[in-house]
C-alpha cells in the first residue's frame, strides 16, 4: 500500500508533526468564524502556495486533490442553483482551503512520524487503563498485513465455489471469509503473546 507521503525537505517537511496537526485543527475551526469572501480567497491562495511547495509535480498534485475537490464542487453547484452565489462560494472556499492544508500535512508527514505522534498523543490516556499507546502502532501494522491476506483468501473461496460449480454469492462468500479470518485471529493473538510483545497485559 503506497502512502501519500512525498519525500522532500520543504518548510512543511521540517516542521514537527505535532505542530502541523495542531495548526490544521486550529485552522479548521478558525475558517468557520469568518464568511468574508476576500479573506477566504486569500486563505485559499496561501494554502495553495504551501501545497505547491511540497514538491509534487503539478499534474500529480492536482490528481491527488481531484476526488475530494469534485465532491466539494458538486456541493457548490447545488448551492448555486438554489441559493445566492455568495452562499455557494463560502463553503467552496472554506473546504478548498482546508483540503489544501490537509493535503499538505499528509504529503509532508511520513507514516512513521504519524504513528509516533498518535502514540505520543495516546500516552497520557494510558493512565485511564483503557489503552496502551504502543498498541496503536501494532494495530495499524496488523491491518496492513491482513489486507493482502484477506484478499488472497477471498480469491481462494471464490475459486472453491467455482471448482464445485457453485454461483458466487456475497453471503456464501462472506461467511466463510469472516469465520476463517476470525479463527486466524486466535492464532495470531497467541503468536503475539508468545513473543512477549505486549509484556504488561494478561
Amino acid at each position, binding site marked *: *500500500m503506497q502512502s501519500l507521503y512525498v519525500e522532500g525537505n520543504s518548510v512543511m517537511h521540517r516542521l514537527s508533526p505535532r505542530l502541523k496537526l495542531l495548526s490544521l485543527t486550529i485552522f479548521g475551526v478558525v475558517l468557520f468564524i469568518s464568511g468574508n469572501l476576500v479573506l477566504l480567497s486569500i486563505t485559499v491562495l496561501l494554502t495553495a502556495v504551501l501545497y505547491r511547495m511540497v514538491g509534487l509535480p503539478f499534474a500529480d498534485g492536482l490528481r491527488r486533490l481531484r476526488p475530494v475537490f469534485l465532491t466539494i464542487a458538486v*456541493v457548490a453547484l447545488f448551492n448555486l442553483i438554489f441559493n445566492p452565489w455568495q452562499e455557494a462560494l463560502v463553503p467552496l472556499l472554506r473546504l478548498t482551503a*482546508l483540503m489544501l492544508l*490537509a493535503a499538505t500535512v*499528509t504529503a509532508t508527514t511520513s507514516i512513521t512520524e504519524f504513528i509516533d505522534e498518535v502514540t505520543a498523543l495516546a500516552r497520557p490516556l494510558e493512565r485511564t487503563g483503557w489503552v*496502551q499507546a504502543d498498541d496503536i502502532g501494532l494495530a495499524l501494522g496488523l491491518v496492513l498485513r491482513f489486507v493482502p491476506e*484477506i484478499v488472497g483468501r477471498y480469491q481462494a473461496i471464490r475459486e472453491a465455489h467455482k471448482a464445485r460449480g457453485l454461483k458466487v454469492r456475497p453471503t456464501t462468500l462472506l461467511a466463510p471469509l469472516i469465520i476463517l479470518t476470525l479463527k486466524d485471529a486466535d492464532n495470531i493473538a497467541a503468536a503475539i503473546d508468545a513473543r512477549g510483545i505486549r509484556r504488561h497485559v494478561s
Partner: protein
Amino acid sequence: MMMSTRDLVLTALFAAIIVALGLLPPISLGFIPVQITAQSLGVMMAGVVLGARRGAIAVLIVLVLVAIGLPVLSGGRGGLAIFASPTAGFLIGWIFAAFVTGYLSERLVNHQQSALVQTVSFFLTAMVGGIVVLYAFGITYLATVAGLGFTKAFVGSMAFIPGDVIKAFVAALLGRAVMVGYPLLPSRA
C-alpha cells in the same frame, strides 16, 4: 478494561476487512457528492460480529489509517484532506454506527433464539445503527458544514437507502452465520 491481545487482533482484522471492501470501486451518483461504497457494509458487519466496543474501535482504526495518509477508502482515497470533503460526516458517523449496531446486537440477539429471530434482529440493529444513526451524522454535516441545507441533504441521501437496506440484510445473514459457525465469540451481555 485494557483490551486483550485477542480483541486487539480482532479489531485490526475487521479494520482490514473494511479496507479490503474498499477495493471494490465506489459508485458516484452525480447528484449528491457522496458515493455508494461497500465499506459501509463492513461497518455494519463490525458491529454485528464484534459488538459495540470492538466494532467501533475497528472503524476508528480505519479512520486513523485515512488520517495518516494511506489510500484505504474506496477508489484508493486517503489523507487528511478527506476530512474536508462533504462526506466527512458519514465517515465520523461510521464509528457511532458500528457502536450502536453492536450495542443493540449484544442486547437483542442470543444463542437460544431461532435462526429467523436472530437474522431479523441483526437486520434491525444494522438498520438502526448503519442507517438511522449513520445518516444523522452524515446529513447534519452535509447540511451545515458543507452548507447544503437540511432538506436537500436529506432528500439526496435517500438515494443510498436501497443499497444500504441490502447491506443491512447481508450483514444480518452474516451475523447469523458467524454465530453458528464461530461460537467462540465472547458471549454478549
